[in-house]
């Protein structure tokens, strides 16, 4: 009796496997053999960063739909194939190879720099152009790949934006504070160089522990030094408490934070009163981009009143840039497309004008200075 059951189960299993295999095959041939232009999308759609990844995918789908509704590109429709890099170097390599084997025309994606580093190598070997909307480690352009294009500003750009704002507001004595994380220290180092280049002096260069809650000693110290501006390059949890305690202690001067602290939570933690006037250097999200209202409204309508995330406007721009380059190349050939993307000149997109420099990164950075006014972020003049 028992033997029979197992035989039947085995038979059923084999059968179902066969069916599933067939289904897979059908899908594959449909994707590669159709009339569509296949665009690979490489994002973390599972894991810790899935929220941002999903949000970027939404924006990409929105852009694709809009392009297809307007007649597509080169007489064909665009179609995306999403692969999950999970923000993990190994997963990213596998996912990138999968996209290569499906013969995608180009790739849009790359959220974590750690995962984008290996995947960009895979696309380089296959000569497939990749447009990266989010990842912005300086290590990416340093690889020197001619297939890799970054449309998000890099860390030195952010430091420059901060230094420019300080110089414009007569802040000559600058205190820099970082939290010892690789990212924050990098930004602080670039800021130091940028401030000194623009004629200012760095009067304090301090490190804190990211989990620290008590910044009274730091506040006392800086109060004695009296900097014109303090720039904190770490994350919002420490940033918020620092803003609060600096106000409490009466440390004067501007207080500016980097994009790691660009979160509504920093206002909540510091308290709306204390956060008033706080400056943030960041790539503005869709809601702060003057001409992106239509995008924000449409995004909210399409995705059940969900607000666009930090990288949705950039992802949207990446797809539009690709479509534009495809038109200019008038071909889906990798080399022609690569050349067309490289030759992009003053492409008007949401919140940025895209031209590439020799490193295939933005010619003019998209970083801006935001200011907290009335408990909300606004673009600083």
């Amino acid at each position: 009796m028992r033997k029979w059951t197992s035989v039947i189960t085995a038979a059923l299993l084999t059968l179902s496997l066969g069916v599933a295999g067939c289904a897979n095959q059908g899908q594959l041939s449909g994707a590669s053999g159709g009339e569509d232009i296949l665009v690979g999308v490489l994002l973390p759609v599972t894991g810790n960063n899935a929220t941002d990844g999903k949000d970027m995918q939404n924006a990409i789908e929105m852009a694709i739909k809009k392009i297809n509704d307007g007649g597509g590109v080169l007489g064909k429709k665009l179609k995306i194939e999403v692969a999950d890099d999970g923000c993990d170097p190994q997963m990213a390599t596998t996912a990138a190879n999968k996209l290569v084997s499906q013969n995608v025309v180009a790739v849009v994606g790359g959220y974590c720099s750690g995962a984008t580093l290996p995947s960009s190598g895979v696309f380089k070997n296959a000569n497939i152009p990749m447009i990266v909307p989010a990842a912005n480690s300086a290590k990416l352009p340093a690889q020197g790949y001619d297939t890799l294009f970054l449309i998000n500003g890099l860390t030195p750009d952010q430091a420059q934006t901060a230094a420019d704002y300080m110089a414009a507001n007569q802040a000559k004595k600058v205190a820099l504070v970082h939290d010892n994380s690789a990212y924050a220290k990098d930004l602080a180092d670039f800021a130091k160089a940028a401030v000194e280049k623009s004629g200012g002096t760095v009067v304090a260069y301090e490190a804190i522990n990211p989990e620290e809650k008590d910044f009274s000693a730091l506040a006392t110290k800086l109060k004695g030094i009296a900097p014109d501006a303090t720039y904190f390059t770490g994350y919002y949890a420490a940033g918020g408490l620092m803003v609060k305690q600096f106000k409490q202690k009466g440390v004067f001067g501007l207080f500016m934070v980097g994009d790691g602290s660009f979160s509504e939570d920093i206002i909540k933690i510091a308290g709306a009163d204390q956060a008033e006037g706080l400056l943030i250097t960041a790539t503005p999200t869709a809601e702060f981009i003057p001409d992106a209202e239509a995008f924000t409204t449409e995004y909210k309508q399409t995705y059940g009143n969900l607000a666009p995330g930090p990288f949705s406007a950039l992802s949207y721009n990446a797809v539009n840039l690709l479509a534009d380059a495809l038109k200019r190349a008038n071909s889906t050939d990798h080399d022609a497309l690569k050349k067309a993307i490289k030759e992009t000149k003053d492409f008007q997109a949401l919140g940025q004008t895209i031209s590439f420099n020799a490193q295939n990164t933005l010619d003019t950075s998209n970083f801006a200075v935001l200011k907290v006014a009335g408990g909300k972020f606004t673009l600083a003049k």
Partner: protein
Amino acid sequence: MDILVQTLADGLVIGAFYSLIALGYTMVFGIIKLLNFAHGDLYMLGAFVGYTLLSLLSGSGTGAGLMGIVVVLLLTMVIVGLIGMGIERVAYRPLLLAPRLSILITALGVSLFLENGSMIAWGAQYQVYPLQLSHDGWNVLGAQITYTQMGLVLISALLMLGLHQFISRTLYGKAMRAIAHDQTACHLMGIDVHKVIGLTFFIGASLAAGAGTMAGAYYGTVNFMMGFIIGLKAFTAAVLGGIGSIPGAMLGGLLLGMMETAGTFVFGGSWKDVVAFSLLILILVLRPTGIMGEKVTERM
């Protein structure tokens, strides 16, 4: 001068938190020779219970006035005190006669349980306390000392004074001191040892919870990992004062807080923990009994 006063005042506030937590460490060690490494997590639990109670209070529209804060503080202390007793009953009492190492490892397990349990209950992100305390204060010799800081130090002092009175004046306090001397003899004398140990855990946990709620209100953010490092610091404070000694824990906490703040001022913020734990190593090498722990046999 103003910098010195400011540093001492800021250090006093941190030191008061350390003292309150160190008391629980030292009391539990005094009575059952257990280094309760889950103690820092009771501080975290106190911060979260206080957060929930305050959210309920301000959610009902009444807002958390000064009375509200005091009521929340007391309620939190009772709730977490009971949790502390429960932990002793479930995790430590069955191991009371086992080798000390087993119970120490259990304490680490309890710590992990509390941290991850809180993460599930309240989430992994930072929660913001639903109140903003006043930033007004006095100007003492050029240093800015807020009413809030004064209030926190005052409440801590009252709690410690109350504990001191309890230990030295009441029958239960006497029983605690007796058990610290000789547990078996106390059994023979008809003292309900388990009850007294349970009471010790209650007091220790509620003092830590009090510190947690106050720290949450003072700094404004709470997180499930906030008890870990401060637990180690409080342990340092207890060792500094002489583990097992109650006045030692109070003194050790205050000293550690002030030295740490001064060290941060001199060496920079990233050296804060280095200062604290270097102190621990120094004390262990130079004077393992701590400042007040003169006689190892006599505790509390």
